[in-house]
């Protein structure tokens, strides 16, 4: 055994094999990156680095920024300011400005896909109404944990989703579907999650509204929990959705029709003063009202996607490609698609209360 150890040491010395050795203290662990585009086409990178010099202040990081000709170049220029080299494997978020999302999205992401030091497990944001370095600096000042913010928004409200970069790429590469990415904005020095932005190919086209983001996530099976309110004032019914599942199928007779089948389980959480729920007929009435509300919302959203947005973010094309329907290959198939929506709501309980007090 001694021979092999000596051989190993000789090999290490001969081939200079310790290039990849780096101590933990040599790393600047990056928490978030924001990328901007300056006027003359150069990239500006802002990073938050976790401060490890004292044990107490761990949520507050150090900010560095630099300008360079490519993403990697500008990130490497930071080394002139920071004593440690940037380490991107534990990154949590990547924030891009609107400008980049509209024009240079694919080029910018190329660096992160190729980089083999980390996995593509971080979340992507688009800075809505501000530049990304302002957003980064706000995140740092307010000591916000952006990952938990996203987590709680996605789980309990549903106007954003927890897709990492890998999931976004997977969705993008499927034929016949376009992506939508979360956005964040600054609202009076507080960072807020805003509605989603939709894309056509690799270019951003615009923003969905808040409610439309929820419907989008419902149709893409990314919804965990949200609140839906039907009617108004005294007839108001508020329900909390705890489970939802959407199935998209092609219609058998017409080849340009898609059927949606949405199953929802909900709990009643609040009602207006005129609403009485005592027997099964009244519960079915309530279910019917909620179903109609959701159906109209979904239909409006689909109409808007077909006519106004013009980009297939729901996935009709992908469904037709998978089932080998030739309608997908026609020009402008999106505007010629027919849909029918069917919603089934199952009310589980009403909060343990059976009689109006």
């Amino acid at each position, binding site marked *: 055994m001694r021979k092999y150890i000596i051989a190993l040491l000789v090999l290490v010395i001969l081939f200079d094999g310790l290039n990849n050795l*780096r101590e933990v203290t040599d790393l600047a662990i990056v928490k978030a990156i924001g990328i901007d585009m300056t006027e003359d086409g150069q990239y500006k990178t802002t990073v938050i680095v976790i401060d490890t010099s004292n044990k107490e202040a761990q949520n507050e990081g150090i900010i560095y920024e630099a300008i360079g000709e490519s993403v990697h170049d500008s990130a490497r220029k930071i080394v002139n300011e920071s004593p440690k080299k940037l380490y991107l494997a534990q990154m949590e978020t990547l924030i891009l400005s609107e400008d980049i999302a509209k024009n240079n999205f694919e080029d910018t992401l190329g660096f992160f896909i190729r980089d083999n030091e980390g996995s593509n497990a971080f979340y992507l944001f688009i800075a809505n109404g501000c530049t990304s370095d302002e957003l980064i600096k706000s995140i740092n000042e307010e000591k916000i944990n952006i990952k938990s913010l996203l987590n709680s928004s996605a789980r309990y409200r549903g106007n954003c989703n927890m897709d990492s970069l890998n999931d976004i790429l997977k969705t993008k590469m499927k034929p016949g579907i376009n992506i939508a990415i979360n956005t964040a904005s600054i609202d009076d020095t507080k960072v807020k999650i805003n509605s989603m932005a939709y894309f056509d190919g690799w270019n951003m086209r615009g923003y969905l509204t808040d409610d439309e983001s929820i419907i989008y996530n419902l149709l893409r099976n990314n919804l965990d929990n949200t609140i839906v309110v039907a009617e108004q004032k005294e007839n108001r019914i508020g329900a909390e959705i705890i489970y939802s599942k959407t199935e998209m199928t092609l219609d058998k007779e017409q080849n340009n029709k898609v059927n949606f089948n949405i199953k929802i389980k909900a709990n009643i959480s609040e009602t207006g003063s005129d609403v009485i729920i005592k027997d099964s007929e009244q519960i079915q009435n309530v279910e019917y009202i909620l179903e109609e509300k959701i159906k109209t919302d979904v239909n409006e959203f689909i109409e808007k996607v077909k006519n106004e947005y013009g980009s297939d973010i729901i996935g009709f094309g992908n469904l037709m490609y998978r089932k080998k329907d030739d309608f997908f290959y026609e020009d402008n198939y999106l505007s010629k698609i027919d849909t029918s929506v069917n919603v089934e709501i199952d009310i589980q309980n009403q909060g343990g209360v059976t009689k109006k007090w």
Partner: protein
Amino acid sequence: MNNLLDYVKSKSKDLNDIFFRNICIDGKEINLIYDEALIDSTMVSNFVIRSIVDSIREESILKNEIDEDKDLKAKIDKKLGNVQELDIENTIAINKIKKIDPQKENVFEYIMSGFVLIIYEDNAYVVETKATLSRSISEPTSENSIRGAKDSFVENIMKNVGLIRNRVKTENLVYKEKKLGRKSKTKVALMYISDIAKKDLVKYVEEKISRIDIDAILDVNYIQEYIEEKNDSDFPISINTQRPDVVSYYLLQGRIVILVDNSPYALVLPAFFEDFINNIDDLYQKSKNVTFTKVIRYISLILTILTPALYLSLITFDQESIPAELLTAFATQREGVPFPAFVEAIIMIFSFEILRESDMRSNKVSGNTLSIVGALILGDAAVSAGIVSPIMIIVVAITTISGLNFSDINVINVLRKWRAIFMLFASLCGIIGIGIATILFVASLVSTRSYTKPFTYPVSPLNFTEMKKSLFTRINISKDKKRQKILTNNLTKSR
């Protein structure tokens, strides 16, 4: 016999502990020669000398009576011949007596073994009157037994054989003895059950033992090195044990036991890898609950070898495998430490090994103080002084505590060596280094042969029935009807 007496007296000029006793009765002279340090003096005075003196006196009384009665004398003379001879062998009241021929045998060998040499007329007799120079049977010192029997071997070979024979009371339990060592003349014994053990293994061991020609055999390890001279692997291929119930269990499986006088350890061969990890105490507990204990032992084997290597490769090469908060914690802790990770690991493990070694060597008086000082050094003080980081202390603590599971000193040495090799490879190449070191370890483990039987027996030449019996689960004793095929040809155990 005057030549013999003069010969002995001339040789023992510098041996002042050899005593000579001369008894002259009735014109007959009897000489007793013994070594004061090795005999039991009550036995010599109460039994040997008294019975000689009494029988001589009876003889002379009887002879006087016979002489006076002439008819009786003629009858006795005709029938029995010469009765003038004092028949020491049949009159002496001692349990072991032998007549020797001083030309062919070395009388000093008998004197040095605690025998009394009796010279009478032309005959020389030796009588065994050995003193008990060993301790009494007590608890085993290096092996813990929770629920089993708590007697252990002592330094006297006959007592050890007695402890074994108490448990295996069959006449097929063979006991073959040899005296080896030119200056030590130690008794070396070979025990096995003749209708269970395999004949070629016995022949091999006997042949190896008969070729030993050495100055002295001081311990059972001397025999072990002679028998194992062809084995060039690190792992031990025979078991050293101090407990007679362990030895009887192995004898009934078909293994061979070697006992050496003056050594409280017995040598059992052949040994497999699972014998060093499993414990005989598992047989004394409920069979279903033992699975968890066995799993813990195997996990601690893996932990004690892999933990420092894993930590080193995670810190220096693969920082992406650690969750982000833990990585920040590591980075914060390691800020103030001036050494690179490998040097820090070496320092800590070295100091723990020094602590363990000094704990074994120091006597009971100063033992407690040293362990307190050691804990102080390696605990808060080193961290506060900024020499090591707290995470390193936890890693080394896990390693050492898992290593305490193994009691055999050979196994501990092997694990130490491989731990160092794993650490070296991991700190130079990262995760590939751990892969390479695993391959080297498995190759070295698997190619060991324990007396021509494969060392990793139930796992490596795969045998499912044997694996079920003792690897992770223990089979119920009432259902265990067959012996192991690799150790014996006599397979049925119970009917």
